[in-house]
């Protein structure tokens, strides 16, 4: 066992998340995957176990942890099912704009219900014409007295339809481009707020991904987070905080696949011996394990950096998400390879890990976008270094 320097509380979170994953998620994961259904029951178990409280401050009903606690829980759930894990992690994503930019009233109103797990949350920025280019958001929010009227739609929103609380980016001033974007808190059931297409996905099928539709949706002005024009900045800060969580999801998926592959390789007999006795397989396993460990360490480091309150966290957060997701794709593909033909079959868990891994390279910024973030930061730092 490697000592990551976790506190007693962090070890408890790990132990409990692992127990839930093993006892409550594993028995149903194949069925959830097959049906493509979000499990309200499992969310209820996570809620009763206080796992939604770990990333929320104590004064708002949480247990006062941060990104590292979120990562620990997400990783354990992902070892068994990446879909269940993202339903959990996306609630943190939806809560971050409130935690980072919300007023005390907004925090008091929304965070306790998220901490208790009574309500799930979601974050919506993506639109048909605004993917990697978040500046392309077309949903508008027009001020009307003491409220805003939202029109437009969001696509691919994790927890869409199942969440009660939504943080949504809309343009309050289109002429100002990215600086004209603002962030609002919406509640399920608001008039003019409806759900559209449900996506049928390749992986993480135990999570809901859905379209949000706003038709003259009236949102009280008190639901604006921070000020008008802060939407884009809030989104970037949100991603800086949440990306290690996706890194943790990737590490968990990779570790889960590796575990299955190692067990299988020790049992599968070919040429009169377990396939794990072939050096080609053993070395493949060695590389997989080494890379997963490197990714994990980077993820924890990034999460600790986030929790330290440091200002410049974009680079390390992006690095942890980029590296861990690329490793997850590689390791899960190799896990299928170790399973041979059986790995390609739905009956065995290997192919699910591979399908689940792919999304970690896409959402919360594609790998290409992470490289953009990292590259720009590194070059910026170099200039600063030269001046000194």
């Amino acid at each position, binding site marked *: 066992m490697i000592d990551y320097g976790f506190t*007693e*509380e962090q070890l*408890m*979170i790990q132990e*409990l998340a692992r*127990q*839930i994953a093993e*006892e*409550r998620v594993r028995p149903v994961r194949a069925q959830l995957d097959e049906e493509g259904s979000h499990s309200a029951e499992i969310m209820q*178990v996570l809620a*009763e*176990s*206080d*796992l939604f*409280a*770990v990333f929320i401050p104590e004064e708002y009903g949480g*247990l006062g942890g941060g990104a590292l606690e979120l990562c620990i829980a997400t990783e354990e759930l992902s070892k068994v099912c990446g879909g269940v894990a993202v339903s959990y992690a996306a609630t943190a994503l939806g809560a971050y704009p409130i935690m980072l930019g919300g007023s005390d009233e907004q925090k008091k109103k929304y965070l306790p219900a998220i901490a208790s797990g009574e309500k799930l949350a979601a974050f919506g920025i993506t639109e048909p014409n605004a993917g990697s280019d978040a500046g392309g958001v077309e949903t508008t929010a027009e001020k009307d007295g003491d409220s805003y009227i939202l029109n437009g739609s969001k696509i691919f929103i994790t927890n869409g339809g199942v969440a009660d609380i939504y943080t949504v980016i809309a343009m309050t001033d289109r002429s100002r481009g990215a600086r004209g974007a603002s962030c609002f808190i919406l509640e399920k059931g608001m008039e003019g707020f409806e759900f559209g297409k449900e996506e049928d996905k390749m992986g993480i099928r135990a999570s809901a991904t859905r379209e949000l539709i706003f038709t003259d949706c009236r949102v009280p002005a008190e639901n604006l987070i921070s000020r008008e024009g802060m939407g884009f900045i809030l989104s970037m800060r949100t991603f800086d905080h949440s990306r290690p969580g996706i890194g943790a999801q990737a590490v968990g998926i990779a570790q889960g696949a590796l575990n299955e592959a190692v067990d299988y390789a020790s049992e599968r007999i070919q040429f009169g011996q377990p396939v794990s006795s072939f050096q080609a397989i053993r070395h493949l396993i060695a590389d997989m394990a080494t890379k997963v460990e490197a990714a994990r360490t980077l993820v924890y480091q990034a999460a600790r950096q986030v929790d330290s309150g440091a200002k410049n966290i974009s680079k390390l957060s992006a690095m942890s998400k980029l590296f861990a997701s690329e490793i997850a794709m590689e390791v899960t593909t190799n896990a299928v390879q170790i399973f041979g033909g059986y790995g390609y079959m739905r009956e065995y868990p290997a192919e699910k890990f591979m399908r689940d891994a792919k999304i970690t390279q896409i959402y919360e910024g594609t790998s290409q976008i992470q490289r953009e973030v990292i590259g720009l930061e590194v070059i910026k730092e170099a200039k600063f270094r030269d001046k000194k």
Partner: protein
Amino acid sequence: MKIVVCIKQVPDTTEVRINPKTNTLIREGVESIINPFDLNALEEGLRIKEKMNGELIALSMGPPQAESALKEAIALGCDSGILLTDRAFAGADTWATSYTLSRGIRRIGEVDLIICGKQAIDGDTAQVGPSIAEMLDIPCITYVRKIEEIDKSNIKAQRMMEGGYHLLESSLPALITVVKEINEPRLPSLRGKMRARKEEIIKYSAADIVCEIDSIGQMGSPTVVEKIFAPPVRDKGTMIKGEPSEAAAKLVSELKEKGVLL
């Protein structure tokens, strides 16, 4: 409403092996768990506590290590845990175990409901629950699969039978033993685990619970275990395949060969 749940720490029998030479359990490396039926007892106790705003106490007799089972009970939501632990309790059979537990319950004071598991997965006798009730001179409903009604003075419960159930009503205080069908035990919560870490487990020795010294432990146990052994492993047997008439003929000829049939 004061409820006591009796929990026993047992070896995880899915991992237990028997040493074929000494015929004793190989306990090394085997994890200790709360007897699975006692988890159902705890869950039912928690539900009643939550519904009726009661107090729930977990009680166990065992070695000092059994403290971890009581901590787990607190993590699940019990208000407190009491461990009856003393060298003098060692070697107890079901009679002495029941006697000791009943004395422990007396020490707690006025209790409205006692919940036990149906049986322990190691001892497996299913005697302790009913014996405690007998020693406390209170009514007992065994094999409860559902509590239909409960209030301060009465309980109405379904006792599981083969192919049906008995509906029984009793005054309180009473003791019930529960089957696994009664509920699905919850998992602990983080807040519960944190509380469990801090909470002191109350420990009572033989002197603390006012008991007859010759009724506890080995001395108080009328049972004498002559021998413990693992049943011999049975041969796999042979399967005679083929058409029924041919298979029957083959069977008869083999039985004749072995001298079973003449």
